[in-house]
């Protein structure tokens, strides 16, 4: 009975989303206030029923209701309780429900805040969000309801959650990722509303900015978590694989980064107006495309959900209606937009334009690499797969160039900057960075590329610090009061840019200064590797809640001093009959020690894989800093004032 309530709630949500997509729009065209005012209550009703059905599904998981097909496919009575909850989004249907729940959450948040918007803008925005919900709710109800029963032959126990997903990282990774790319639907809805109402002025950019920064922060966190999870869970010590599913979340991030910057220009200077709208559509389209690629089975991937052609066709139709419709609308409206301001080639606008061009190129690079196999096949040229070498060769130089512009940009002034001033400001730090990076590269025997990258990183960091210092030391008030006066937006930018530098250093050093080796060790034996002594104490057997494991005990010392005790595991999950490796890790600021257990070889000996990963934590530290930067700028004071007036 209870699962049917969930199903029914979903149908009600579908009904309200249909009303939401239609009624406020009619109100807008007929200038009917009553109809316009239905937008907020309809949003709340829709969200409420989505929440009900989510809670019902959660209850079915918690109570081990294996008569529900989806529960029996993704859970097991032996599963620890927190994994029972997170198993909800372990498969296609449930993660779609989570997607819709988060979309409802964003819609309700917009509805709450929409009181401060002009009377006809808020309802149109909500209505656009309602259309997105309508598309996904109908997709779910017609092709992939999680409430389908396996009656009358309900299984006694479930098939268990994929062991790869039984991990703390996977409890929080999908919700954060979805918070991010579903959040871009808000920017999308504002863009479409601006196109519908024809109000493509700076104010829409102002309303959209905090939402976009917030989504971007979530997406950054989601991707960071995903990378961290892949690092310790897949047992290869890699942190990014250019897998289609990773790319699916990375493309909206790149486009979203461009959007965050171009919104700033549109808000402050009133230029790039139609470009920003296009970018907002593009960013959310990439989120949708990502969903399509993951769900339709057109690409193979380690994460792929079960492929089902009907689902694929349905999502494709959804894509064509949502994206195609938006782009058509864009084509019809954007030609009427005229720029209201101009800018010089050394102005900040120009640097941000470069930023946008490079980020778009990067996005297209990833998009092309991801879709190339498909296009190749359609043209009848055979089947190929594109791997990490392509991405690394094409992506890295452009990304490095982007960081160069990131460093210079903040020094320029809006509209026009004197070239000599700009040069003076950046030259000394550049020389300093090149010399220091050169010394470091020489001492640690790094190559030319590393020198170049390190110089760029140091230079950016110096410029960020210098910019802050120049700003706080001007005037007479003293450093601390002035530092407190700088807007949160500025600190957001500063921290996010520093995060970028930290990540860059992490990526550079992990790829140039890491060591790995596979050794054969019997209990009691030791091996010296990369300056550390690894002593294999032995193997113990243990029993987890739903698995059996061999746990290796390896003590690591350096020059006779104890460093860490690592306990890599090899787990056998009995229900799904899968073997998983859990790496033994000792995390450090400048290096990680990483050990994973291979196979039992002859006698008591085991194959053991050892890694010393230099500065790998910096990659995620930088990610977290970028997230904080995004959050800070979303919380800037001026967005919390009512923005009814058009005083941007």
């Amino acid at each position: 009975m209870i699962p049917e309530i969930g199903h029914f709630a979903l149908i009600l949500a579908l009904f309200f989303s249909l009303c939401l997509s239609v009624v406020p729009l009619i109100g807008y065209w007929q200038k009917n206030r009553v109809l316009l005012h239905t937008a907020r209550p309809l949003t709340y009703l829709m969200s409420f029923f989505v929440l009900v059905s989510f809670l019902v599904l959660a209850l079915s998981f918690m109570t081990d209701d294996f008569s529900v097909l989806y529960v029996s496919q993704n859970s097991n009575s032996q599963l620890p309780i927190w994994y029972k909850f997170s198993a909800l989004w372990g498969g296609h249907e449930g993660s779609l429900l989570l997607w819709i729940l988060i979309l409802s959450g964003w819609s309700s948040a917009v509805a709450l805040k929409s009181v401060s918007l002009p009377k006809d803008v808020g309802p149109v925005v909500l209505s656009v969000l309602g259309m997105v919900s309508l598309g996904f709710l109908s997709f779910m109800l017609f092709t992939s309801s999680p409430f389908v029963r396996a009656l009358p032959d309900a299984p006694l126990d479930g098939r268990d959650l994929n062991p790869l997903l039984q991990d703390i990282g996977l409890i929080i990774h999908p919700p954060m990722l979805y918070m991010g790319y579903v959040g871009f639907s808000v920017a999308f809805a504002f863009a479409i509303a601006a196109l519908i109402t024809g109000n493509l002025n700076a104010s829409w950019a102002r309303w959209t900015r905090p939402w976009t920064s917030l989504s971007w922060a979530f997406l950054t966190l989601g991707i960071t978590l995903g990378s961290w999870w892949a690092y310790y869970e897949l047992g290869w010590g890699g942190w990014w694989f250019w897998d289609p599913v990773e790319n699916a979340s990375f493309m909206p991030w790149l486009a979203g980064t461009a959007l965050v910057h171009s919104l700033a220009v549109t808000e402050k200077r009133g230029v790039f107006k139609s470009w920003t709208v296009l970018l907002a559509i593009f960013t959310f389209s990439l989120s949708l495309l990502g969903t399509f690629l993951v769900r339709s089975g057109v690409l193979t991937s380690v994460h792929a959900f079960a492929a089902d052609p009907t689902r694929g066709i349905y999502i494709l139709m959804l894509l064509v209606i949502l994206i195609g419709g938006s782009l058509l609308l864009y084509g019809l409206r954007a030609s009427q937009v005229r720029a209201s301001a101009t800018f010089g080639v050394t102005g900040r606008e120009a640097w941000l334009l470069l930023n946008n061009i490079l980020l778009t190129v990067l996005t297209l690079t990833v998009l092309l690499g991801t879709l190339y196999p498909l296009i190749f096949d359609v043209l009848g040229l055979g089947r190929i797969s594109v791997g990490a070498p392509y991405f690394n060769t094409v992506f890295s130089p452009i990304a490095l160039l982007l960081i160069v512009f990131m460093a210079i940009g903040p020094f320029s002034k809006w509209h026009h900057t004197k070239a000599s001033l700009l040069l003076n400001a950046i030259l000394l730090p550049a020389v300093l960075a090149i010399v220091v990076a050169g010394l470091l590269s020489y001492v640690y025997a790094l190559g030319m590329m590393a020198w170049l990258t390190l110089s760029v990183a140091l230079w950016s960091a110096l410029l960020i610090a210098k910019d802050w210092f120049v700003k706080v030391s001007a005037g007479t008030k003293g450093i601390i009061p002035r530092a407190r006066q700088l807007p949160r937006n500025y600190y957001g930018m500063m921290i996010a840019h520093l995060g970028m530098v930290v990540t860059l250093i992490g990526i550079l050093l992990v790829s140039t200064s890491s060591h790995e080796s596979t050794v054969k060790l019997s209990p009691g034996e030791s091996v010296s590797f990369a300056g550390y002594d690894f002593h294999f104490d032995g193997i113990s057997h243990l029993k987890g809640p739903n698995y059996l494991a061999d746990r290796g005990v390896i003590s690591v010392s350096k020059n006779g001093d104890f460093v860490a005790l690592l306990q890599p595991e090899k787990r056998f999950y009995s229900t799904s009959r899968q073997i998983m490796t859990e790496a033994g890790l000792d995390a450090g600021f400048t290096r990680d020690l990483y050990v994973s257990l291979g196979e039992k070889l002859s006698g008591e000996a085991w194959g053991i894989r050892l890694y010393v990963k230099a500065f790998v934590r910096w990659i995620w530290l930088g990610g977290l800093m970028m997230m904080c930067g995004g959050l800070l700028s979303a919380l800037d004071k001026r967005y919390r004032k009512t923005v009814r007036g058009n005083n941007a």
Partner: protein
Amino acid sequence: MRKLLVFLPFIVFIGLGSVLYKQLGTNPEYMPSALIGKPVPDFKLVSLQTDTVQDQTSLPKQAYLLNFWATWCPTCEMEHAYLRTLAKQGIPIVGIDYKDDKHKAQQWLATRGNPYQWVLTDELGKFGVDMGVTGAPETFVVNSKGIIVYRYQGALDDRVWQEMKGYLK
């Protein structure tokens, strides 16, 4: 000109949409790797039967199948019977025991029969990474010159074999 330009995103998207449409329903499991046309990458793997380290030189000199399998993989169990039929027809098959437990693998072969000429253990999956496999079972056809000519992801059966055997020369 500008009028046309603003419609460009729409036109590109429609093109992309039709590519995706054509791609739906095709079998993504048939996915040859970047290694097609290239020799088998270098390896040093321990043989499951003799516990000795083997390299390129131990591979068959005639055309053969290179099959990734594991005891943890239910599909491999389904495939196993078909591999034995192929082996009875005299097709040389080299097995790569992929990310697996050695003793279980030996037991598996003892109870189900061994269709393989050689079984090499790739316990850490490193050779699998070199070959670009994404899981098990996965089968490559290597021709008599030692060049990889075909790749199949998923269990072999009669239908797949009809296409695959054309490459085996």
